[in-house]
């Protein structure tokens, strides 16, 4: 049996969803028989592969870089899974949305008591006007809300998808 | 039980109009909107003093009075300018270019609907239909209904008001 290609992606989030993924513990070993981890912040591949079966996305789409990445990933992924509240609702990253980028950057980098106050502009991707959930940018196939979703839930979703079934856990999951 | 009458906030004669309206309605709670109309007619807008006076006189909670005053768009809690220009945004006026008139006022006088010029000379307001659709686009300049408005003739009138400022 060929192993399914799995990727995990970290956009604007706290990495908590990835921690929860790792919390699957020994079940990861069980999964390892049927999946091949082809791209992830947890491993060292630099390029997102041409064809990926399942991609778990953590984090909101907050910057130009996030946007570019997720569009590329969508093109090369069969089943895209929004993992956790940041990907599903934009969650904490969206708390800046009502105020606008300038107000936020000024509040953080232009405080009068800061020495050499200046907004970083080199080597960091510029922020989008608002942080968005992944499905507002590209089509999403499966939603797994939670902050973070539990290891059990992630395991259930991944194993159902590996079995080519649409996981139905809508009433089991909640925001937050 | 006879309720004690609340004294007017000051000896400003304009309060008499408000008091008279409330008295005519027997200080009943349902006179709230009528009382607010009187207060706005007397003072041009509703400040917190008016709202409190009406609330106390009619025995109504402050929040209810504030809620009513802000529900109806006819009431304003901000003092208007010396002159007011109301542009009708009814459908007939919109179809005939009321939107462009508003835009041109915005461009030429830096005045948006609901705003007053910094020198308090003129306020721009919009209405939801003056019922003078036959004259569309129409407006009200200091209480006088004027029809067939154009960006040009509106600008003319506004300039007249603003020029006399100094």
């Amino acid at each position, binding site marked *: 049996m060929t192993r399914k290609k799995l990727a995990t992606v970290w956009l604007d989030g706290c990495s908590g969803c990835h921690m929860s993924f790792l919390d699957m513990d020994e079940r990861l070993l069980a999964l390892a028989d049927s999946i091949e981890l082809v791209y992830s912040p947890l491993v060292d591949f630099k390029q997102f592969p041409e064809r990926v079966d399942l991609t778990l996305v953590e984090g909101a789409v907050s910057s130009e870089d996030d946007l570019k990445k997720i569009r590329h990933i969508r093109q090369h992924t069969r089943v895209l899974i*929004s993992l956790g*509240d940041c990907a*599903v*609702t*934009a*969650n*904490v990253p*969206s*708390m800046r*949305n*009502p*105020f606008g980028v300038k107000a936020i950057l000024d509040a953080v980098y232009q405080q009068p008591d800061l020495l050499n106050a200046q907004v970083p502009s080199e080597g960091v991707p510029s922020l989008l006007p*608002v942080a968005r*959930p992944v*499905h*507002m940018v590209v089509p*999403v196939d499966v*939603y*797994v*809300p939670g*902050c973070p979703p539990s290891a059990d839930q992630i395991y259930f979703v991944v194993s159902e998808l590996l079995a080519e079934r649409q996981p139905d856990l*809508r*009433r089991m*999951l*909640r*925001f*937050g | 039980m006879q309720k004690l009458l609340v004294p007017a906030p000051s000896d400003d004669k304009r309060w008499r109009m408000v008091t008279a309206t409330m008295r005519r309605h027997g200080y009943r709670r349902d006179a709230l909107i009528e009382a607010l109309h009187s207060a706005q007619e007397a003072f041009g807008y509703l400040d*917190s003093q008016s*709202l*409190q006076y009406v609330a106390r006189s009619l025995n109504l*909670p*402050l*929040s*209810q*009075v*504030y*809620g009513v005053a*802000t*529900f109806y768009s006819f009431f304003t809690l901000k003092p208007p300018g010396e002159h007011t220009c109301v542009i009708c945004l009814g459908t007939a006026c919109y179809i005939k270019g009321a939107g462009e008139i508003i835009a041109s006022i915005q461009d030429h006088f830096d005045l948006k609907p609901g705003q007053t010029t910094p020198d308090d000379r003129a306020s721009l307001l919009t209405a939801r239909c003056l019922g003078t659709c036959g004259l569309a686009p129409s407006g009200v300049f200091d209480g006088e209904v004027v029809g067939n408005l154009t960006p040009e003739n509106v600008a003319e009138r506004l300039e007249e008001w603003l020029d006399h400022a100094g």
Partner: protein
Amino acid sequence: MTNRVLTLQINGQEVSGREDETILEVAREHDIHIPTLCQLEGLSSIGACRLCLVEVANVPKLLTACITPIQEGMEVHTESERLNHYRRLVIEMLFSEGNHICSVCVSNGHCELQNMAQLLGVDHVHLPYRNPQRRVDASHDRFIFDPNRCILCTRCVRVCDEVEGAHTWDLKARGIQSQVMTDLNQPWGDSTSCTSCGKCVHLCPTGALFEKGKSVAEMSKRREFLPYLTIMRGKHR
């Protein structure tokens, strides 16, 4: 007033109730769940949240269960794909209207909006978020009002008026601009009418009203007083 007993069907089940009862009351007496958010026993029903809409045979429009009195022979359906679709949209609308960040909310895990989303299977919001800018009012000694989490159910307004009798809360403006506020739209702490009784806080379905000092997920609400007060008031009448 005579209180005849009427019989009707809810979801195919024969049920009966007094003629002055609503569809919602009769359904609850028979353990049939109809979702609600604005309705609360002990307060007047206003039919605002639209979650309790039900289908009734031979009635073209959907009816508000919390307000509609039962009728003899009525055939009520409380569940259908269409109703569920509408109910999910109502919940999505609420999430899109305010700034609901469950993960950092005092009411996380105790929130009626969050629970309702789960119950109705809302796993994401496909309406654009509106991201309004709303100011938190922490001027009161003991309580905080965070309008970002307010769903305008007006339970606070109703309990303050109908039970406490202070009428500190009311709505200002209208439509998408409406918000609850105290007295003349002043800081809550400056309100002259508030008795600090806290009933509004405990009836609030979300984390919009909460006690100072409570951290994430720590604010669970106590509602036992409401039925008790309602019964006692009934006895005095």
